[in-house]
């Protein structure tokens, strides 16, 4: 064990946004060990106030440049709930298909560009090109497929324009959907190449475990490995599912001095969200290829190694591609029809919840009778992981104190990266009132 360790990572690299790791060990005793989030607040909840219900999903999509479709979908669902709007089965299915595109796009970005350098022992994707060019080429190919898939359904790769409360402003043609299905089928061999490459370096994934609570969506009717419908469950909730309208009972947000982002807790002092949480709550519902991928890596329900979140993301890449092929067949079998999007303002309050690639995401809005927003509350997944990251640190550091300072730093950084945090999204301001 080292008597003296002093680590100040300011900021962690290959994550979205700014987070610091501070470690001070003196005389073999841990004096400071903190996961800090110093990112400035973003004020989105204030920005949407007094804006029309029709504008909300467009504004909040800007919270993130990676999971903008997810934010738009959560907002659209919340607005529709507040206004009592129902959408058609066709709209619902196309939105889910759109959402899958973002899961693939975000996961492949994280697995291929952000996490893979750790597994291959290089500092970034740039040197990775020199040692694994074919794998990087494959990642680029899959990333392109996912981005163009988003383009087709969302109108843009990032910051969608086709979502409206009550429906979609544009739908793809049957020909485009058939082409997409072919493209997705052709992508499966590429996913296998990426999975084989990650498996070849899987020995570099740290073997660390800490029991915690895993929170995600769960859809029971019909049972689905859900990113979009259902209620909230957790590994500590005895299989019970609670309605998304009660999300505040889950998140219990609180302020922590070391973080500009709020922290959350439910049954314990922290919980985790993301691909591993979804897997731990729903793995029996994965598609056949998703199950095969999990088996390949020995990933089993109940896994509590946070470093395996990246593997769970890879498993989900297979799942969303296979589930999308099935979904496209379902859409095509009913035939596509143009639908008019109609909505009307009314006073109301509603919550919307979807799984972002990084975990469960909550949006809630209240509108006056003219449909103008009077209150907003958003809780994003990375918020919900901050306390869990801190608790992981507290278990991991004593276990690795015998290693060199550089190795300790790398392990802690890898741990943060395994959560695929989107720190810029997770910071939001305390409740403030503007003096008029």
């Amino acid at each position: 064990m080292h008597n003296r360790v002093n680590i100040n990572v300011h900021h962690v690299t290959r994550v979205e946004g700014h987070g610091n790791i501070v470690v001070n060990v003196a005389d073999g005793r841990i004096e400071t060990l903190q996961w800090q989030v110093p990112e400035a607040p973003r004020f989105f909840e204030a920005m949407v106030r007094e804006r029309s219900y029709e504008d909300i999903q467009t504004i909040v999509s800007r919270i993130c440049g990676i999971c903008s479709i997810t934010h738009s979908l959560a907002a659209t669902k919340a607005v529709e709930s507040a206004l009592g709007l129902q959408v058609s089965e066709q709209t619902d299915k196309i939105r889910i298909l759109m959402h899958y595109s973002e899961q693939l796009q975000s996961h492949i970005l994280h697995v291929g560009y952000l996490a893979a350098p750790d597994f291959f022992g290089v500092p970034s994707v740039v040197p990775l090109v020199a040692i694994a060019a074919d794998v990087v080429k494959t990642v680029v190919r899959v990333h392109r497929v996912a981005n163009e898939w988003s383009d087709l359904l969302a109108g843009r790769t990032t910051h969608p324009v086709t979502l409206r409360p009550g429906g979609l402003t544009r739908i793809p043609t049957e020909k485009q959907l058939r082409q997409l299905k072919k493209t997705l089928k052709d992508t499966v061999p590429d996913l296998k190449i990426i999975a084989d490459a990650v498996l070849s370096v899987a020995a570099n994934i740290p073997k660390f475990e800490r029991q915690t609570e895993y929170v995600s969506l769960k859809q029971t009717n019909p049972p689905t490995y859900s990113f979009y419908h259902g209620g909230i469950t957790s590994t500590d909730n005895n299989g019970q599912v609670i309605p998304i309208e009660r999300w505040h009972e889950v998140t219990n947000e609180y302020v922590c001095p070391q973080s500009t982002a709020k922290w959350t807790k439910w049954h314990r002092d922290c919980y985790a969200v993301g691909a591993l949480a979804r897997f731990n709550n729903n793995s029996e519902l994965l598609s056949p290829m998703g199950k095969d991928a999990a088996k390949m890596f020995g990933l089993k329900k109940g896994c509590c190694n946070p470093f395996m979140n990246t593997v769970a993301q890879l498993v989900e890449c297979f799942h969303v591609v296979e589930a999308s092929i099935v979904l496209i067949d379902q859409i095509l079998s009913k035939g596509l029809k143009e639908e008019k999007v109609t909505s009307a303002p009314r006073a109301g309050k509603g919550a919307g919840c979807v799984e972002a690639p990084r975990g469960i995401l909550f949006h809630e809005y209240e509108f006056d009778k003219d449909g103008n927003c009077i209150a907003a509350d958003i809780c994003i997944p990375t918020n919900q992981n901050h306390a869990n990251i801190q608790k992981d640190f507290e278990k991991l550091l004593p276990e690795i104190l015998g290693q060199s300072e550089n190795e300790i730093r790398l392990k802690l950084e890898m741990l943060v990266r395994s959560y695929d945090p989107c720190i810029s999204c997770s910071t939001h301001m305390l409740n403030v009132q503007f003096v008029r």
Partner: protein
Amino acid sequence: MTQHTHKKDVVLGLGNVLMSDEGVGVHLIARLSALKKNFPHVDFIDAGTAGMSVLHLIANRRKAVIIDCAEMQTAPGTIRRFGPQQVKSVKTLTHYSCHEADILQIVGICRQLGQSPDEIIFFGIEPQTVAPGRALSQTLADRLDDYVDAVCKELT
């Protein structure tokens, strides 16, 4: 979905439209897209702050024209045409984020992967104002037609 396996040309406009002149590349794509019928062999793409996505947007193209705001130590509003070999980046990268990319580095990765376009041309436009704001500075706004002409000349 767009098929990039055939060798079409691409024009990418880079930048952040919320930071006034920093978004000039994107403003130009909006103008150039209106002329699309004159250039059927060209995809005009608003790449915004796309970061690593630029890799697959330019991969295997015949020609890639990249328009971006550039600090070149010239007078504000100046447009300069150059190839990747004519410049070196002095941008400090921290690898904090996938949004934080150095376009020259991405072009380098593309070359290393053997997927570089046959020809890459940059148009750098010297900013007047890089600060929060959605409008271009008057200096750049007054010259938008010149910029469009310069890019169109490159495509014919």
